[in-house]
């Protein structure tokens, strides 16, 4: 293989440097350590402290290797590979040193494997076994070590080896900084007793990252204590749906019960990182009552019914309704497949576009108008770019806690030296970390963004003119820009124009730059939403494609938009006014035509329910608040003649329903999820549905059948592979198998030219 780096170098071909490891000659790149080269070559070197993603190494001294001529043993993890180096990773001297270190470790704590929860995953016990280190005959007293227990984590420092990984995870990965570094002169650390990295539990966010990285049994999940040995666990990889991040998790089960949740390793978007909700929420008992059976209102009371009874009733009422009298509100709690079936039902079976997922106040502007010419809604980008960002503009008052894993990615970028700029209305919790913060009234945020855009455009105009380019309508452009330049805005908002100009300069000078809209910031689509999209597309043009905007929505919002749960968009983002797109779908769905006029958005649906124009509502949500002000939504629902509520728990909506269709909850059905960067990942079934709850796609299919529409796809994979991925051109027929491991950012990127 040729190294493009060296061949590019003015044609001079330099041979890659070489090093010999255990007699094998290997090439390496300057900067690689002996451990890097050995690992790449399949030579295992043991480590206990090594945590490269946190830059943590060189504590345990188990990776020592023998380098010819070096005199002493060297740590493979931190010794750079050097041309001509001759390394032995398994010599007697090396093995003896490792064995001595292991012996010291085993003897310095209470490594009682019989009752230890880490057994089977413990890296120390694995090495002790490999190096045949005898356990000690006497154990130090338990009260010599700190111990702390909360509802999620047991911290038993009698098993701690002081490797520092928990500190590294807390400091460099989650950037919480609540775990102290296990070091300091012994004389100043109570003879070493204070070395144990007991976190500041008052400040701890309980993200549990330290538990994931602990190589021994010092940090364990309380929920798993005494429940299951690691080899008894069933592990299912899935997608967390608590927020728009779509983190990849592994759910550990024993006999069908969830015991713990961990990050799914080095895969996007979260690369093994989780937040408290993602890790522990599933272990919390849900206080809300589950809906386990269909309910039908009889004599004013909701009573249990069979599925047939409920579905027949729904079909009967919907079949009798005229087009335009039924509207749907779908919250982002469903899978892509369920969302797709929902909108298909409304368009193909009921002949209406009156279906939406947004909150009432966010639905004043059509989604299609913010598509920024890309043919899709919202803007695309990779969450991983957040970490690589060197300049970040965070827009809005959303908090890190809304998307903790994205928040920590931002904090990581800032820790690594990124220039953080915050534009908010005074409530951003990243404000303190920001190098520049501009706080204005919420209504002025779009003005400031437009000011930034004006600066960028004015500079561009200036440099074009300098370059001698002819810019058409130059004067008019200049006059228009002058009206929105920061100096103008600053006057009104009492801001420093120089600050706004400085932000604009950073966004083009520092690359990659990211514009990140927080939760709720883009609800105002015409204002902040549109300005963010405009700024992003401008930055793409001016500063290269690495500039991305991330409107961080909640749950599967991106999936719902992508699947067409919107009054003006078809699946894949084509506007409903596009006759070709409509016909293509109509043909596939076995109907003559689809409604051509954009339907009612949430706000209009609620108004029409109250006004009587819409008589029947199909609401798929657990809480009315999913669509805005709960009281307002409930008032609209109350005004309807007939209300179908689909949901997993018995919330405020179910109480007002005429028919309740119990749907599956997270983890009870297969499907896909689209996250904030529009990465499509797999949701997997980890448990049986509660009671008679059934997936939403099935309910729509059953009602459709009763109304004379036979839908072929009879399971989620078929809905995806036989319909969605074939009907949406930008999905290019992608199968579940292809998104199994890493997911796929939609639309699939164009192939990189060779």
């Amino acid at each position, binding site marked *: 293989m040729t190294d493009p780096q060296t061949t590019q170098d003015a044609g001079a071909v330099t041979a890659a440097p070489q090093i010999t490891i255990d007699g094998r000659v290997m090439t390496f790149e300057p900067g690689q350590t002996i451990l890097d080269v050995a690992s790449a070559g399949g030579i295992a070197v043991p480590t206990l402290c090594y945590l490269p993603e946190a830059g943590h190494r060189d504590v345990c001294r188990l990776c020592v290797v023998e380098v010819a001529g070096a005199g002493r043993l060297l740590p493979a993890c931190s010794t750079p590979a050097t041309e001509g180096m001759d390394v032995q990773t398994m010599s007697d001297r090396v093995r003896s040193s490792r064995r001595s270190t292991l012996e010291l470790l085993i003897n310095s704590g209470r490594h009682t494997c019989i009752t230890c929860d880490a057994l089977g995953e413990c890296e120390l016990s694995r090495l002790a076994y490999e190096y045949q280190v005898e356990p000690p005959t006497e154990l130090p007293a338990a009260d010599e070590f700190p111990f702390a227990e909360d509802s999620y984590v047991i911290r038993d420092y009698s098993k701690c080896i002081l490797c520092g990984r928990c500190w590294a995870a807390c400091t460099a990965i989650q950037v919480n900084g609540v775990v102290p570094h296990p070091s300091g*002169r012994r004389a100043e650390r109570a003879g070493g007793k204070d070395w144990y990295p007991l976190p500041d539990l008052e400040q701890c966010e309980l993200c549990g990252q330290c538990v994931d990285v602990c190589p021994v049994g010092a940090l364990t999940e309380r929920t798993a204590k005494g429940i299951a040995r690691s080899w008894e666990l069933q592990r299912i990889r899935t997608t967390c749906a608590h927020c728009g991040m779509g983190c990849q998790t592994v759910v550990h089960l024993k006999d069908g019960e969830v015991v713990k949740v961990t990050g799914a390793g080095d895969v996007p978007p979260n690369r093994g990182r989780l937040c408290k909700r993602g890790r522990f929420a599933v272990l919390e008992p849900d206080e809300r009552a589950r809906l386990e059976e269909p309910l039908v209102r009889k004599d004013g009371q909701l009573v249990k019914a069979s599925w047939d009874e409920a579905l027949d009733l729904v079909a009967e009422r919907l079949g009798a309704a005229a087009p335009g009298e039924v509207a749907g509100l779908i919250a982002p709690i469903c899978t892509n497949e369920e969302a797709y079936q929902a909108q298909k039902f409304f368009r193909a079976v009921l002949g209406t576009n009156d279906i939406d997922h947004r909150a009432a106040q966010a639905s004043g502007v059509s989604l299609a108008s913010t598509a920024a010419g890309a043919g899709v809604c919202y803007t695309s980008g990779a969450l991983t770019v957040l970490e690589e960002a060197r300049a970040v503009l965070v827009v809005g008052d959303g908090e890190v806690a809304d998307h903790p894993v994205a928040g920590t990615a931002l904090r990581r970028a800032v820790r690594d030296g990124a220039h953080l700029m915050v534009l908010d209305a005074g409530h951003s919790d990243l404000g303190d970390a920001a190098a520049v913060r501009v706080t204005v009234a919420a209504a002025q945020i779009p003005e400031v963004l437009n000011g930034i855009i004006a600066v960028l455009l004015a500079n561009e105009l200036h440099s074009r003119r300098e370059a001698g380019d002819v810019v058409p309508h130059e004067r008019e452009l200049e006059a228009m820009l002058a009206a929105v330049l920061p100096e103008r805005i600053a006057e009104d908002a009492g801001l420093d124009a120089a600050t706004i100009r400085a932000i604009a300069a950073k966004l083009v000078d520092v690359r990659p730059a990211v514009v990140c809209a927080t939760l709720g910031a883009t609800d105002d689509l015409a204002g902040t939403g549109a300005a963010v999209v405009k700024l992003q597309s401008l930055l793409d043009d001016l500063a290269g494609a690495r500039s991305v905007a991330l409107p961080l929505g909640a749950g599967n919002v991106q999936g719902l938009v992508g699947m067409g749960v919107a009054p003006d968009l078809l699946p894949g983002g084509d506007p409903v006014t596009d006759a070709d797109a409509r016909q293509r779908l109509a043909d596939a769905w076995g109907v003559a035509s689809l409604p051509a006029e954009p339907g009612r958005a949430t706000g209009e649906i609620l108004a029409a329910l109250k006004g009587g124009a819409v008589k029947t509502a199909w609401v798929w949500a657990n809480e009315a608040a999913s669509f805005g002000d709960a009281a307002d939504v409930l008032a609209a629902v109350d005004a309807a003649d007939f209300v179908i509520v689909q949901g997993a728990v018995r919330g405020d909506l179910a109480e007002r329903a005429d028919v309740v269709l119990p749907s599956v909850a997270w983890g009870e059905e297969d499907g896909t999820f689209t996250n904030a960067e529009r990465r499509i990942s797999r949701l997997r079934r980890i448990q049986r549905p509660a009671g008679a709850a059934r997936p939403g796609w099935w309910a729509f299919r059953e009602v459709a059948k009763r109304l004379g529409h036979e839908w072929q796809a009879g399971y989620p994979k078929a809905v995806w592979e036989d319909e969605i991925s074939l009907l949406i051109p930008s999905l290019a027929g992608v199968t579940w198998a292809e998104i199994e491991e890493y997911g796929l950012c939609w639309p699939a990127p164009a192939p990189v030219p060779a």
Partner: protein
Amino acid sequence: MTDAAVAVAGAWTTDPSILPDELHGAFRAVMGWGGMAVWDDSVDIVDLTREYARQTVQECCGQCFPCRIGMHEVGDILEEICEGNGTEERLRRAHELAEHVAEASRCDLGRSGGYAVLESLEQNRAAFEAAVAAKAPIPRGTYARAVVAPCMAACPAGVDIPAYVEQLRIDEVERSSEAVRKRCPMPATIGRVCVRPCEDACRRGSVDEPVAIRTLKRFVADSEAEIEPRVLPGKPRVAIIGAGPAGLACAYYLGLEGVKSTILEALPEGGGMAAVGIPDYRLPREVLRAEIGRVEALGAEIKYNTRFGVDVTMEQLFEQGYEAVFVAVGAHQSARMGCEGEDAGYQGFMPGVEFLREIAFGNVPLKGKTILVIGGGNVAMDCVRSSRRIGFDDVKLLYRRTEAEMPADQVEIVEAKEEGVEMVTLVAPTKIIAEDGVVKGLECRRMQLGEPDASGRRRPEPVEGSEFVIPCDCIVPAIGQVCSVDQLVPSHIEVSKWKTLEVDPLTMQSADPRVFGGGDCYTGPSSLVAALGAGRRAAESMTAFLNGESVGPPPDVRLEHAMLEVVRKEAEQPLPFTGTTEQLRPMVVPPEVRIQCFDEVEGPVSAADARREAERCLRCYRIAVGVV
């Protein structure tokens, strides 16, 4: 080493002369990373080794497993033996472990500690076996201990550099600042303008490039929060002459001890040479003022425009109730070039120190097109670079040797050239050419390099008949400063033939026990960081003096002083690998911009960069224990 040593073991046996004479006399025996020296055969080597292990265990940072657990067990075994509970088996275990610690530890603390104990166990096998067999407690000796490193040995203030670098590495900036401030009371200043001998001594330099120690110190200092001023009770007990680095350091450490002081400063500005000798583009005045503010916040009062010897005498100070005086008046007189016309008072001629001082007070002391600065040190660089900034278009630096011999910091030379300064080397001034009392040019003579002189640099020798004239408007000699402390202190205070104070180098105390001195007025023109060290040492002895205690340095200090000397003399040990990393270099303002003003040239670094740089430190700690 002296003949009196009865046993010298370990690596030091090959070159015992490395151990300075001051050890002998102060200590009966010394055990260190290079072996052991015993001058008194009544010293119990088993107990000495036990103490050495104990000190290594106490210094252990708790990170790498071999040193943390292994050395601890070695210490336990040696304790058992000294308590009379040793066994053969445990002694063998100590052997085994010491070897493991020496081989597998992360830093030199464990490596050299394990090695020293192993050496002692092997060299004194009979003594250890006898101690095990005797089963009798061994009485504990009295010991001093010192922890040193090559960078610390090079630092005239003895800052524990690995300690603060380590704290930066682990994101503990506040603790890093604490570590710095133990011996460096002006880190923002030192972090900008230190001559950084530590970086020359940094062992990382033999692998790739030294750790950017100065840059890291500036990062730490710039991250510090302001402190709350406090009011110390009572009257000031110490008078400090001169608010330069030595005086400020002395007041700072006195303040930490709760001793109130008054600083008398001749100028209207504090900081001494740091204020009036170092231009603002290297050390912004507000940075220096903030550091001075911190000294004041600790309880020192500065009286400006007060000339010692004119406005107040030493006797008057004692009459006013001050119990001790610290003389730190600096060296502000320019050295003479030995060139015809330099005393004639020509218009356009001004000594470098005066030139810089005028600029520091916002004046433009010289005007014209062409200026010649004579000298090759940092002061000369400050003069040429300042000249560019006050409007001279043609700035020439004249030096009698070549650029390679210039004592100035390499960065200064490079940046001066970037700013358009012309380096004229191998020339020496012979005569100032003037018309009507106004400088018109400088007659110079070509030089050539001859044999090396005492400093190791090749001696410049004149080329006969090579005289030539460089036309110019102004001439600034900057070939060094001299002291004139003899004119300031009473006659009973000893003064050297260089007119510097005579004080004890460790206690800074003069022949008059109430009078201490330090800084340039003791060393002759030296570095800022050396002055800080003198100020701290003086503060320590003055505190002892005020408390009626012995001023003589405690054994730990004596041992440290001697062992730092050992580190300086030791041959550099080769490192077993070659690195591929580069030193962190802060951004600098481009030359065409920076010559327009006196704004700071060097930019700050980010926390991320500082942390990455800190990871490059090799922690070359080593320990010594002395038997008192």
